[in-house]
């Protein structure tokens, strides 16, 4: 399967992990508003692309992977950090889509109703993010089986 969703993963999120994400996300939104209020929309707008949940999610990804390996009797420290790097790589692709989302708002908001711009920008973000991820998978990702076959044929 190319992309999968595991609903049971929600049960694995601990209460303090929910609280960290909620409080940090809420706090960044308040800061973005206050900066815009005091220093204007040019500076305030930068904070709309602040990496709000990125540090927390990368460290939680690392911790979950480490726990997963520990349950199997292995030291998952290195594996956890590798998975965090893969997660960060996904975020790098997501940043291009984030810029696309902002561009839709910048171009269309003064001309069109926000009721049209919000879903349109979200759709552009999702399409660009998934599209770039699939392109990367298609052109730059070397399947494990292919690399193993290459190794065997040597």
């Amino acid at each position, binding site marked *: 399967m190319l992309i999968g969703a595991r609903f049971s993963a929600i049960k694995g999120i601990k209460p303090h992990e929910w609280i960290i994400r*909620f409080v940090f996300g809420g706090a960044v939104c308040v800061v973005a508003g206050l900066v815009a209020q005091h220093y204007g929309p040019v500076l305030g*707008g930068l904070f709309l692309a602040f990496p709000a949940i990125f540090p927390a999610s990368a460290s939680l990804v690392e911790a979950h992977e480490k726990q997963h390996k520990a349950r199997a009797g292995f030291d998952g420290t290195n594996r956890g950090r590798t998975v965090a790097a893969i997660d960060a790589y996904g975020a790098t692709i997501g940043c291009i889509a984030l810029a696309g989302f902002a561009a839709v708002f910048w171009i269309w908001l003064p001309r069109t109703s926000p009721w049209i711009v919000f879903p349109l920008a979200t759709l552009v973000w999702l399409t660009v993010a998934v599209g770039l991820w699939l392109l990367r998978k298609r052109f730059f990702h070397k399947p494990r089986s292919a690399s193993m076959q290459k190794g065997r044929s040597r």
Partner: protein
Amino acid sequence: MSHELTESLARFFIGGTIVSFFAVLAEMFRPKSFAGLFGAAPSIALATLGLTIASHGSNYAAIEARSMILGAIAFLCYASATTWMLWRYKPPALTATLSLMPIWFGVSFAFWLVVR
């Protein structure tokens, strides 16, 4: 209760909810490179742009969105550096993400100096 405090409280609760929603999506999806896309989701923008439009109008929000493009480029630099550091040196993820955060501030501030 003052208008500013009410707006800040609304931002906090709407922001916290939307950020948590994207965090859940990031937790659910596999593979991890796909789930990582949600780490750069427009969660703060979705939470605050509606309130900004309501209080300051569409043109003001469009100026914020223009700056957001620059913020996203800064995020791209920061996320690329974090990926490289985690892949190459394997430090704890929290150490890498927090120690490289000045990249986002530096690139954003440089852009702000250019466009202000």
